[in-house]
């Protein structure tokens, strides 16, 4: 079951408008995999993630999200917290409840079971006590927990996280990665984690996609993040 392909990209070019950032991406992800997407600032990590999510169209090539039990996989997206405007007077609970929009049609009310599930997701990420607090007034780590709860509340088949540990302290990083590790272990959740933190990816992910100089390297953490390979890549970069 977990050997089934969930995502495949075949010579896909990604970028904004006419600006190509990654000209040729070919890779595939299995169901139940935990993959880290690594790269320096501006290497195209978030652009690739947004293309996979369908937020940006691919400029060329073929991308396919393979159906699960005959239906399109549900994507759970955790954006960078800075992308959300703090002017919105939303409680953390309201932010998580937005995830129900994927299941509750337009004009229909969100029922009590969805409310309960949203609270359950907040509890799962250790943010139950933040439910009534204004989202804009939370600390960086607290916001990340709430956004992760929102991503989980979509009941995702594929969880995609954009820099979930950027700009937060070591304790909060450990807590967030701990939740991800548990979810992956318990549910065989497919996870794609964007990060520029090599240590985090090495510690938690099994596979890695490394964006390096416009090229895309894809392999197991044990081989791609081995000392020799990193030295080889970094040496290339310095030259």
């Amino acid at each position, binding site marked *: 079951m977990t050997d089934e392909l969930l995502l495949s990209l075949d010579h896909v070019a990604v970028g904004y408008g006419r600006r190509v950032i990654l000209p040729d991406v070919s890779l595939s992800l299995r169901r139940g995999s935990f993959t880290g997407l690594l790269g320096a600032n501006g290497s195209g990590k978030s652009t690739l993630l947004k293309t996979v999510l369908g*937020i940006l169209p691919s400029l060329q090539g073929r991308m396919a999200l393979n159906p699960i039990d005959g239906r399109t996989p549900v*994507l759970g997206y955790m954006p960078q917290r800075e992308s959300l405007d703090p002017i*919105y007077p939303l409680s953390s609970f309201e932010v998580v409840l937005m995830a129900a929009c994927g299941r509750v049609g337009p004009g229909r009310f969100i029922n009590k079971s969805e409310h309960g599930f949203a609270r359950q997701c907040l509890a799962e990420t250790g943010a139950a006590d933040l439910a009534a607090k204004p989202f804009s007034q939370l600390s960086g780590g607290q916001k990340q927990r709430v956004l992760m709860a*929102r991503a989980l509340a*979509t009941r995702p088949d594929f969880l995609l996280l954009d820099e979930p540990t950027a700009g937060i302290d070591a304790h909060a990083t450990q807590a967030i990665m701990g939740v991800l590790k548990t979810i992956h272990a318990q549910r065989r959740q497919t996870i794609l984690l964007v990060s520029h933190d090599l240590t985090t990816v090495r510690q938690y992910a099994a596979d890695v996609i490394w964006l390096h100089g416009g090229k895309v390297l894809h392999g197991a953490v044990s081989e791609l993040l081995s000392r020799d390979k990193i030295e080889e890549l970094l040496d290339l970069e310095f030259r």
Partner: protein
Amino acid sequence: MDTLREIFSPDFLLRNSIYISLLVGLVCPLVGVYLILRRLIFMGVALPQISSCGIAFAFALQAWGIIPHIHESEHSLAFIGSTLFTIPTILLLSLLVRRGSGSVEGRLGTVYVLAGAWSILLLVTNPLGEHGLLDMLKGEIIAVSDADLAGTAATFGAVVLIIFFFRKEFLLVSFDRDMAITLKKNVIFWDALLFLLIGLTISMAVLSVGPLVAFGFLLMPPLIAHLFGRNMRQFALIASGIGGCSAFVGFCVAYRLDYPVGPTDVALLGVVYFLCFAAKKLWLLCRHEAVQQS
């Protein structure tokens, strides 16, 4: 007290005026909430002016003999002119804002000043419509027919119902457009519907109370409510409540002192905003002191 007794008496002559003030006061803030949240305050300034320009243009077409003069058709003509100018403009401006290219404030400023200039030019070329239009621009809410009131109430009722039933979709595409896309929402449709409602509300409000008052009720009650609302429901209800109360009190004050209603409403909203802002600052200061002492 005498003023209130007079206003509540069944044969009060300006009964429709107070109803229309209340409708504008209650509904405009509900739409204005989205202008504040989407940081489109300048659009709230420019659009009522565009709407006025549309009304002036429609009346000018009639004065120039391009469209025929039909008895008691002024309100419908003004509504068509206002809507035809406002809705395409809001859709175009929102598209440009979404693309993020160029200076948004520059474009809105240009639209505002051009619409203002053209409104005046169209007004002076149209002696027939000059008097009524000037009253409208001043915010004189005096002569409101039963038909005008019914039309406004029906339009605002429809706007409130649509905003209520689709609030979760409007909130999602406004707050996190990317997530809306991942949840397979048609963001272009929901954006267009929201801007259509904003455009329709502005057209109707300008027609009823003039651009100054429409702008005042679109933006000031939500700005006041933003000081206190801790979630979206509170934010929308407080904004609408402040708008409705200010419209009623403003009307009473204007009637008592024989002032024009529109400017009185806006001036009152200014006082409420100042008092609420000061109260919030004072409360924050007291809380800070209490935390430091403990």
